[in-house]
Structure formats: C-alpha cells, structure tokens
C-alpha cells in the first residue's frame, strides 16, 4: 500500500492498543485524533486540521472494529471504545470504506486532455464504435453517456492526448465488488466480495480498512482464558529475528502459547496428496488446491462450476485450529494472518475465534515495546516440514503435494499465481472443458500474486520475505511420504 497511508493506519493501531493498555481506555481513545494532530501542527494532507482529525477518527473507528459507513459523526471515539469493550459478537463484514477519502478520487472515465491537437485525421472518432467522440471547437470531446470505456480512442490517438482516468480500488478488484456509485463514494458489495484485500492495498488514500478485532483479542488476553496464537507460514519473512524468537515475542505480548500453522499445512499436504491419488485413479483429469481462503470465496460466489475439481482437503488453518481445540477446548484461538480473506474463513470455522493480521501483531509489539531480536528462541511442540513452511509463496503448495507423493512423476502441476480477470477466465475454462492445458493435472491457486507473502496485510517486501522463509525451510526436515 501507498507508504504514508499504511504508516498512518499502523500508527493508529499502536495508539488504540496503547489506549487499551492505559488506565483509561475510553478517554485515551477519544484523544487519538488530537494526539496525532495537536493544535498548531502543520497540516500534512487535508485542507485543515479539523478535517485531518475527522479522518483519523474514522480510521480509528475501523481499528476498533466498527463500520465507518454507519458513523453519523455524533458518537465520540470514547463511546466507540466502550462499545468495543462491551461487544460479544464481531462483525462478519470484514472491510469498511472511509468514504470521505473517496472525494479526492475522480470517477472512472475516458478524458481528453489539453494535448489534443485537433488533428485532421481524427482517428479517435473513427476508432470509437459507439459514436461517443465528437469534435467541438476543433477538439475531441467524449460523450460520457455513450462511452463504454473500451479505450479504443486512447489507443488510437497519436499524441497520447486521451487518457483513461482509473479508480484504483475498482481496477484492483478481480470480481467487480467495489464500485464508486453515483454519489462518488466507493462501497463494497458483499454478495460479490471475495475478501482478497486487493482494494485495501490499492487505494492511494488508504480508504479501505479491515475491521480490526484487536480489542476483542486484547480483551481475551486480559481475561483468565488461555489465548493461543496460530501463526501462518508466511510470517517467517515478516519480522526481524527468526520464528523461534517470534514465539517468545508473541508470548511476551500476552499469548499463552504459539502454534505454527505449518503444522496444519503438513496435514493439508498429506491429505491432498492422498486425495490426488484417489481422484486420478477414479479418472479425474485434474484437481485444484483448496487452501487459499480468497480462492474458496471465489468458488462459492463466482465459480461454482469448478467445485467438482477442487480438493476436499481442509486448510492448514482448519487443521491447526482443530489440534489446538482438541488439546485446549476452552482456549481462545487466534489466527495470525497475512490477509483479510482468512477473516472470512474464520467465520465459517467455530474453532477459530479471532484473526489478527501481521500489521496488527506488529502494532502490538510496538505498543508493548517488544524487541524480537532480543527474545530468547523458544521451541515449538512440533517441528514442521520444509515443504509446509513453504506454503506461503507461489508454487509452495503444489511442491508440498508433489513431495508427499511416492511417485512424484505422476503429478504435473500448473500454477495460478494471483486471481485477476484473466486467471479467473482461465479457471472457468478448465472447469467447463473439464481439462487443463498441457497435460497438467494439479492446479495450485493462490489469490494473491506471489502467494501469501503478497497478502494485503504483509509487512515485508516479497523478495526479502521469500528469502527469509527459505532460510528457515532449508534447515527443516522433508515432508513424509504418504
């Protein structure tokens, strides 16, 4: 995400956590906008300090886990803090849009700039199939009513004088679930949204927020209950130090124990390898993976035709949470996640109580002043395999299934590295034709480009993150054959 917007969101999270840890949560939360924009401060982004504070208030509402859209501006942050403390249910609509920020963003349209030379050839008028381009006072003009935004005129102009004004959130969404409506505000259609989080990362104003469950998690930590963190495999590349120091750091932050979700990934890989053999023996032409929450949402909402080809094996989060709850039925299980899609998955799984993303865990470390590098390494009850620890980047899941097979040659994987309009079309083709390209019989699908290390709530850049994961996995044992 755009640097400053994400910096701001993290700062607000730290302040919310600090407020919770203080002796007056409500008052300290109410003061957040004033602490960040004190009287007399130079205004960094908006027209005036009052607007800045209003926007920070909105972002804080999301950080407290409430929808910004429903705020009528009369309720103080102190009251929101109180409501967050009192609530027992969490909202299953995971995203919320700070619509005040949408004002700065022009609507999606084709626009003729001053560079139009009013040329004689007028290729724009002939290129348009809808009669939307006409000449007024010697220059091209576009009729927005007729324009279908096909960009033919944009490509036809030899002066590059015509541009497409894009709305980043709309452009980033692979399923057309976020739209700027007539009023100019973006809103999310949850019947379509697959919770991929692409819009949160794409908006340069940082307008799309995850509704944080951090207060609910802090409440659980403060209570007598045992709270267990389940850390996704991609976390290995996200913080300073190694995952053994990270375990100590998470315990220092208040959790009672830490499980690697790679432990569940080992079960996923093993089960998926067995299922692959069965399906091939049965005569299926291909099978797709099923561990990505964004992909599973896509199947449910947009691509039901591929369901027969999707592995029935559960996700690493599912198996890990099952293990945790078997051992400690009364514990509160928190999945530590790279993306918003896992929040959607958690609402379908009674064993997962809360989801905390990497940014929120980072904010918790900052608020509690925990230096991961200074933490003593702590062992995990079960050491995960090399392949399971590689689940978080593209190619890792297919490779783990392959490695678990006795006959590695029997599998010919192909990879969908990121869901977008093209790759969704490709998956649809596989589903309707019942076969994949080039004799491939196993399709690994990752919603985010690069895999989980490309998730919307990741902290580190992909290249370094992958290197750090491989540093760990190269020292880990191989997965057992089925």
């Amino acid at each position, binding site marked *: 995400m755009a640097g400053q917007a994400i910096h701001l969101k993290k*700062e607000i999270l*730290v302040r919310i956590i600090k407020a919770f840890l203080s002796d007056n949560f409500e008052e300290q939360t109410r003061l957040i906008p004033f602490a960040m924009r004190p009287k007399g401060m130079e205004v960094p982004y908006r027209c005036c300090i009052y607007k800045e504070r209003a926007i920070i208030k909105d972002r804080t509402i999301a950080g407290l886990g409430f929808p910004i859209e429903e705020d009528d501006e009369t309720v103080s942050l102190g009251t929101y803090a109180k409501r967050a403390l009192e609530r027992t249910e969490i909202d299953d609509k995971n995203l919320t849009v700070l619509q005040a920020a949408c004002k700065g963003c022009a609507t999606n349209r084709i626009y003729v700039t001053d560079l139009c030379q009013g040329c004689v050839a007028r290729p724009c008028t002939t290129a348009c199939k809808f009669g939307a381009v006409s000449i007024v006072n010697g220059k091209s003009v576009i009729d927005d009513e007729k324009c279908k935004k096909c960009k033919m005129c944009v490509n036809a102009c030899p002066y590059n004088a015509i541009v497409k004004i894009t709305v980043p959130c709309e452009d980033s969404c692979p399923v057309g679930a976020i739209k700027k409506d007539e009023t100019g505000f973006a809103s999310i259609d949850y019947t379509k949204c697959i919770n991929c989080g692409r819009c949160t990362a794409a908006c340069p104003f940082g307008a799309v927020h995850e509704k944080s469950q951090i207060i609910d998690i802090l409440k659980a930590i403060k209570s007598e209950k045992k709270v267990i963190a389940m850390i996704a495999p991609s976390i290995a590349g996200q913080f300073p130090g190694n995952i053994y120091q990270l375990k100590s750091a998470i315990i220092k932050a208040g959790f009672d124990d830490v499980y690697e979700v790679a432990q569940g990934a080992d079960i996923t890989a093993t089960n998926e390898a067995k299922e692959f053999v069965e399906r091939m023996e049965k005569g299926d032409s291909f099978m797709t993976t099923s561990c990505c929450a964004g992909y599973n949402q896509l199947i449910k909402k947009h691509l039901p035709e591929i369901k027969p080809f999707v592995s029935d094996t559960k996700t690493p989060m599912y198996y890990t949470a099952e293990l945790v709850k078997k051992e400690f039925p009364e514990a509160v299980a928190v999945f530590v996640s790279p993306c918003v899609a896992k929040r959607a998955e958690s609402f379908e799984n009674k064993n997962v109580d809360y989801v905390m993303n990497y940014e929120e865990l980072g*904010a918790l*470390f900052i608020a509690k002043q925990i*230096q991961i*590098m*200074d933490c003593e390494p702590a062992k995990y009850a079960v050491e995960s395999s090399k392949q399971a620890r590689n689940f978080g980047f593209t190619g890792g899941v297919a490779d783990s299934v392959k490695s678990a097979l006795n006959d590695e040659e029997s599998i010919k994987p192909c990879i969908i590295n990121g869901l977008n309009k093209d790759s969704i079309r490709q998956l649809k083709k596989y589903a309707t034709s019942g076969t994949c390209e080039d004799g491939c019989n196993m399709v690994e699908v990752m919603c985010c480009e690069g895999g989980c290390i490309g998730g919307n709530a990741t902290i580190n850049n992909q290249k*370094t993150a992958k290197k750090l994961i491989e540093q760990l996995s190269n020292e880990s044992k191989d997965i057992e054959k089925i």
Partner: protein
Amino acid sequence: MAKVEVKVCLGTTCFVMGGNNLQELNDIIPQKYGDKVEVMGSNCLGLCSINWEYSKAPYVKVDDEVVTEATVEKVLEVIDKKLG
C-alpha cells in the same frame, strides 16, 4: 577522509513501520559511493523509545545525523550533503 557510516535500524518498531523498504540501501550505497560510505544494519538504535516517537520510525543514522521517517531518497540526500 573518514568513511560515512550509515546505520539502518532493524529494531521491531522500525521494521514494522516501513524499514523493510530500506533494505535496498544495501545494494544502492556500495554501487553509488564505493568504499566512501559504509552501510550496516543495527539493533534497535533506541530512538523510538525517546518520548515514544514510534510514529517517526523508521530511523536511519548517517554518522551522527538522525533521519526520521526514513526513505531511500531521504538517506541518499543526507549522504550527498555529507560528501559535499
């Protein structure tokens, strides 16, 4: 002339608040300045805990000069000024 010393803070706060983007400096600095400038990662420089100024992280120190909300461009600018 003494070498200019660039210390990139690798403490938790700086890392989480955007320090990962500064890893590029490890490649850029030797390329651009040869052995006139030395770049190194550093354990927490302790700057975030003074007055709780985590909001100004990530931090980089160029000799004794502290760069707040550091970006690659900001750090290079300070080095250029030092080298004259």
